[in-house]
């Protein structure tokens, strides 16, 4: 491949906000069916994820999203952050969800969230977390996903982490194989009342 590839944290890219409408559907797809269930539908999910990507306190902020650029074009993303930061972000995101729902929508939000309970177990503080890895649909194939995943791990190593975690839908054999080929092992199978199943996968160096 001759394309010029580089990785950049999206918050450090000029005019990064322009990527938010592109990213939100990618993040939704990578996280689904969780996000549609949590936010109450596709339209609601995309709108909320655009707000989350723009908010620095969010797990899905541009400040935590690594972009793969190819000849200057955004070819894919991975969200990468350590467990202590993730814990703080989850709190901020839950607050944002409550605020967005308002008093009138709160009961519905709690009911939807209850259906997703138990899916993502808490991380130990010395673990680096990779998620929402996505390659632009028309650019799939060519090893971009693997390159993004490796860059995410490298970001964790640079921050001093030696334990890594990601998750894969139990039905997503392609990503499970990719993560396994990078040294990750399935350590837990989780599920939630709505029926989604996840493999929790870890790498320890």
């Amino acid at each position: 491949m001759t394309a010029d590839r580089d990785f950049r944290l999206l918050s450090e890219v000029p005019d990064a906000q322009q990527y938010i409408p592109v990213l939100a559907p990618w993040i939704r797809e990578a996280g689904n069916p969780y996000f549609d269930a949590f936010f109450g539908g596709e339209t609601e999910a995309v709108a909320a994820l655009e707000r989350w990507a723009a908010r620095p306190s969010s797990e899905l902020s541009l400040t935590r999203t690594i972009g793969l650029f190819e000849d200057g074009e955004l070819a894919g993303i991975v969200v990468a952050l350590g467990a202590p930061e993730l814990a703080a972000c989850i709190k901020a995101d839950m607050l944002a969800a409550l605020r967005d729902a308002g008093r009138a929508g709160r009961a519905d939000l709690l009911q939807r969230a209850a259906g997703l309970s138990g899916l993502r177990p808490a991380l130990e503080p010395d673990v680096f977390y990779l998620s929402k890895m996505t390659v632009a649909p028309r650019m799939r194939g060519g090893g971009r996903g693997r390159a993004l995943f490796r860059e995410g791990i490298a970001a964790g190593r640079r921050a001093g982490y030696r334990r890594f975690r990601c998750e894969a839908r139990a039905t997503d054999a392609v990503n499970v194989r990719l993560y396994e080929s990078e040294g990750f092992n399935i350590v837990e199978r989780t599920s939630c009342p709505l029926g989604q199943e996840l493999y929790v996968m870890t790498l320890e160096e």
Partner: protein
Amino acid sequence: MIQLGPSDVRGFIVEELKEQIELAELSPDALVDTLDLHASGIIDSLGLLELIAAVEDRFALEIDFEDLDADDLTVLGPLCRFVAEQAAPAQA
């Protein structure tokens, strides 16, 4: 108007989470102010949603968390003090 104090908030939260606190093998009567309800596994992200909603409903508040460090949001002592402070202006 009765002044809401941190101990009132604490009493409510501990009662709300009594079962989960005991499951975490802690004593509801002997919790330290520095206990992080999230890090200790007492609540997960859903539990946090439920707890905030319950506190706001119980004390008829809409808490503005903008001024609270996210790390403190699930730490028992700071959370209770913050909620009590938020209640103060409305009751003054």
